């Protein structure tokens, strides 16, 4: 599918376009965070604590007089980073496991699929939580633990796809020509399977961002970084006197996740046209 054709299909859904545009804005915000924050995110002004939203502090201030808008803007970075890195890592593991199993076949396939099934039926969130509590909550552990538990869906998709194209004429033809397995995988098989993988990855990005927020909210965030879940956690004792403290980070977080999910839905409709017409 050419890019122009894809775009023609994708823009049919107005919601999907809005979603993708919003998600792109979040990417820009996270990249340029230090240049657009009105105040440094850690700067305390105790004389200004619990200020309601105003023209100076658009989102108000927190219990230490820190500007909430600046903190929320910096929080974009950690959510984006987690979303991207976890998706990359889990997709990579999923592709490797799924493709290995399907290509090699036999007992290797059986073993890898059992591991995939086992990982799939674990209560993922609680596994991530337990591992993170034991190994210490920091950014690297967060990415590693989430990346190594969230790959089974991709592995299954890739395996099914590889199995279905493995015996097709064009793959057999490349094999006859003496092309190596790895080359066949990356140049013949993956481009066909990539559509469903992209959709699954997009939706997983949203889940990873929600997981990170939930973990930070429960107290397993990286304490040296500003995260939306952590800001909401800190606001809990003060919600009676400062409603803006939990509300704004939550609105921003929800907006990002909605945008990503809309993008995923749009990609699904655009990349699998036969599904839409059914």
């Amino acid at each position, binding site marked *: 599918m050419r890019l122009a054709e894809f775009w023609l299909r994708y823009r049919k859904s107005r919601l999907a376009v809005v979603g993708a545009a919003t998600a792109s804005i979040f990417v820009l915000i996270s990249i340029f965070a230090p240049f657009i924050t009105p105040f440094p995110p850690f700067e305390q002004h105790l004389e200004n604590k619990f200020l309601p939203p105003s023209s100076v502090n658009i989102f108000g201030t927190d219990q230490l007089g820190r500007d909430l808008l600046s903190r929320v803007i910096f929080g974009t970075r950690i959510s984006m980073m987690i979303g991207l890195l976890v998706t990359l890592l889990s997709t990579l593991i999923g592709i490797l496991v799924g493709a290995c199993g399907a290509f090699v076949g036999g007992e290797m396939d059986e073993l890898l699929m059992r591991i995939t099934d086992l990982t799939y039926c*674990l209560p993922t969130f*609680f596994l991530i939580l*337990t591992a993170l509590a034991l190994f210490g909550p920091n950014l690297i552990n967060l990415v590693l633990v989430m990346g190594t538990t969230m790959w089974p869906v991709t592995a299954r998709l890739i395996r099914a796809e590889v199995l279905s194209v493995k015996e097709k004429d064009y793959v057999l033809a490349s094999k006859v020509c003496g092309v190596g397995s790895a080359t066949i995988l990356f140049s013949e098989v993956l481009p066909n399977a990539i559509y469903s993988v992209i959709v699954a990855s997009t939706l997983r990005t949203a889940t990873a961002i*929600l997981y990170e927020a*939930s973990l930070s909210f429960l107290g397993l965030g990286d304490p040296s970084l500003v995260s939306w879940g952590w800001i909401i956690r800190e606001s809990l004792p003060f919600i009676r006197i400062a409603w803006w403290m939990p509300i704004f980070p939550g609105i921003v*977080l929800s907006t990002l*996740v909605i945008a990503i999910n809309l993008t995923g*839905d749009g990609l699904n409709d655009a990349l699998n046209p036969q599904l839409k017409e*059914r």
Partner: protein
Amino acid sequence: MLKRIIVSPAVLFFIVLLNFLLMKLAPGDPVRMFVSGTYAPPEYVEAMRHRLGLDKPLYEQFLIYISRLVQGDLGFSFVHNAAVLHLIGGRLYNTLLLTGLAFILSLVLGILLGVIASKKPYSALDNSASFSSLIVFSMPQFWVAIIFLLLFALYVPIFPPGGLISVGKTGVDYWVDFLWHLILPTFVLGLTNLATFVRLTRASMLEQLGKDYILTAWGKGCSERDVLYKHALRNALLPIVTMIGLRLPWLLYGAVLIETVFSWPGLGMLLYDAIFSRDYNIIMGIFTIISALVIVFGLITDLVYTYVDPRIAY
């Protein structure tokens, strides 16, 4: 079927092994928990290692770990000064009650909305049902809980702001008060899990409504109600039964977060406190218990599935 029943304990064993490995691989020395300050005489550390069984080979430690688990020993919490199983047992009912009620709420409401949405696909009603369920699905559950707490317990104080019961209630009043405290958390947990069932019911209904037997039913002169609920929905429910089995981890994940906001004394609150006080035995115990719950529940839904759809055999 037999295969399915054999596989479940294997999954549980895998989880126990995983728990053990995580515990062993984690940085930090358990002996340090009993040694205050930075210096301890080496003989004392050695004696402590021996007492805790840490000088035994790894497989032996694992066997001891398993034999204790089988006897229901999930370890000891030094923060609460009580056995972990005892602590979890005291909270489990509250979590299961909350999760169960929310499950029923989301299932019934989700199927109903899904059927309504499937009546006229791509109509305004269908689009708004799909869109709003996507929005609720995308919001962090603990945040939705905070909004409801602010709105309906603090600004418009219809419901209590949290806890299990009010002080000093007895008899019927006690149970009414208990349910009163339960409504808000149940509603939030049910609402945030609605989307999956709405979307699945809608897709499944649309697939069924395109089939020939539905045309036959219309041709026979069945009423819309009969066609939708008696013919289409019955068949459309099959994938939903599968989904029920897969949703439990998500509901428990939501319950843990929502309990924290509403101070509902279930596993979530226990977990929240355990994370705060670094009480690892409780955290691992909760992981084990929740995994066991998920596996048993998955097995039950599979059994139910073979009953509702006799074509399936495991």
